[in-house]
């Protein structure tokens, strides 16, 4: 996803001199080509995220479309008030980019686990929240954000995730879920880097005779309520998957919609509990530890599918 982002941004910068990238002294090697080609549109601001966000706001006030780039929690909650007051209140074209959503930097420890960002960014007025699920979605989200749609949070994974979508041209629309697999036994709704796992689980369920729908939710705000309501109406179970706390992210957004629409559908949020992950290990290991791996999710979904209906 990171590579898709940088590739798209480079193309965008070439065609629009307003497109500007500010990095917080992170992204070494990744942004070197961009920096060399577009010196007037690039800035390494140093390890100073509050200033990074304030400077981005100022440059956006002067007409630029500014991407701030760092990893994990540094471009978001370190400078949250700058994002809220300077960027969101003034409806500025600033795109906050975090590489390393969830446990991407797992073994680096708790400081590098970005597990509350979606909830916090989703709560900010004027903010659009993207959490693409594969490189194609990351490319599309970057292009939308660079169009100057006001404040955006773009949560990326790492480099080298697989392309999940079959078609080269995905049906991308801001605020719309993307149907990845169809089925009526249940629905798995995924945001961010859980998409490949969601598809894996769906394929395993299919082999066991359960046809489940998979919805990718790369835009968390505005939220595609209709897709969730349809899933509740047309399938027997709704499960949300996110590499993020179950408080305030995708699962909460879906729960809000389902509760307010009296759907009555069986529903489960699968994500990280509201607890620090003190376990040491890679993203894969920490996902397994939090029961976010395909085998654990398969077990959870199967038990829900087999449970007697109320």
């Amino acid at each position, binding site marked *: 996803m990171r590579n898709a982002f940088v590739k798209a941004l480079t193309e965008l910068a070439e065609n629009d001199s307003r497109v500007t990238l500010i990095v917080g002294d992170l992204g070494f090697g990744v942004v070197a080509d961009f920096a060399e080609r577009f010196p*007037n549109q690039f*800035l390494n*601001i*140093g390890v*100073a995220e*509050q*200033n990074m*966000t*304030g*400077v*981005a*706001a*100022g*440059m*956006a*006030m*002067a*007409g*630029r479309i500014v991407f701030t780039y760092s990893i994990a929690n540094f471009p978001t909650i370190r400078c949250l*008030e*700058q994002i809220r*007051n*300077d960027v969101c*209140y*003034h409806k500025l074209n600033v795109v906050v980019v975090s590489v390393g959503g969830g446990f991407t930097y797992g073994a680096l420890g708790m400081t590098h686990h970005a597990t509350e960002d979606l909830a916090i960014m989703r709560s900010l007025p004027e903010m659009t929240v993207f959490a693409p699920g594969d490189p194609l979605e990351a490319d599309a989200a970057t292009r939308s954000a660079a169009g100057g749609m006001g404040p955006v949070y773009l949560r990326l994974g790492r480099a080298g995730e697989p392309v999940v979508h079959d078609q080269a041209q995905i049906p991308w629309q801001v605020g719309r879920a993307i149907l990845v697999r169809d089925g009526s036994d249940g629905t798995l709704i995924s945001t961010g880097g859980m998409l490949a796992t969601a598809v894996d689980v769906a394929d395993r369920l299919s082999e066991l005779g359960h046809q489940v729908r998979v919805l990718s939710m790369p835009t968390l705000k505005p939220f595609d309520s209709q897709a969730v309501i349809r899933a509740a109406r047309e399938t027997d179970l709704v499960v949300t998957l996110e590499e993020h706390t179950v408080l305030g992210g995708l699962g909460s957004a879906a729960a809000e919609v389902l509760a307010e629409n009296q759907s009555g559908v069986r529903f489960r949020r699968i994500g990280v509990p509201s607890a620090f992950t003190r376990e040491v290990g890679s993203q894969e290991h920490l996902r397994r530890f939090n029961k976010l791996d395909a085998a654990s999710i398969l077990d959870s979904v199967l038990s829900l599918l087999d449970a007697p209906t109320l």
Partner: protein
Amino acid sequence: MSAATRELARQIRVHAVQMSNQAGCSHVGSSLSMAEILAVLYQDVLRITPETVDSPDRDRLIFSKGHGCAALYGVLAECGFFPKEWLDSFYHDGARLPGHVTADAAPGIELSSGALGHGLPVSCGLALAGKRDQRPYRVFCILSDGECDEGSNWEAALFAPHHRLDNLTAIIDYNKIQCFGHVKDVLDLEPLGAKWSAFGWEVREIDGHDVDALRESLCGVPLQPGKPTCVIAHTVKGKGVSFMEDRLLWHYRTPQGDEFELAMAELEGQ
């Protein structure tokens, strides 16, 4: 010229005291300390008029000490950016002007502030974009002294000289009092000028109530080509009303009754 500037400063003070009285709010001392700074900026320095508030090449004033908003609202009204009647409903339910500077409250306000430590980074961004896009505008940022406790300012203080932002001027309203008492007792800033200078700014320390000194410094920016300017304006909190001067009380107290009459009488007589 100086007489007219002093008269504008006096009008800013009258508005600030009246607004505080009508609103039942305070922060009046913070507005009174910066009256001359704003008078000089709007009369002699800033290239902005009510007709050019949206011009891309207008000078930008980023008012970072948002709690001193009564002074800013007052000078903008006096200079014709919006009707003076708007000042009468400051703070009132459903009115236009809230108790900290808000950008869409009135024409001529660039940035909403009130959370301290936001203005200087934004000013740096405006100044950098101006340099890179070769625009002629200049950026002026007014900070309070207590605000200098915020680390974000020092991130920006490192940034501006590194990028040679000589189109940027920081003005510190150094009235020596913050929420809990004197700055030197709460969290000492001294040696303040030496700190900014060490960070790479061209520093000028002046009497912030001397309109000639203010004019000379602010009309002369950049004081050193290639460097941002920091004007440390030594001021008195509550300046212009004898019983408010250098008193913490008037960060919190609303002038009412006899105190209001007395304050107005003092200001009318100046």
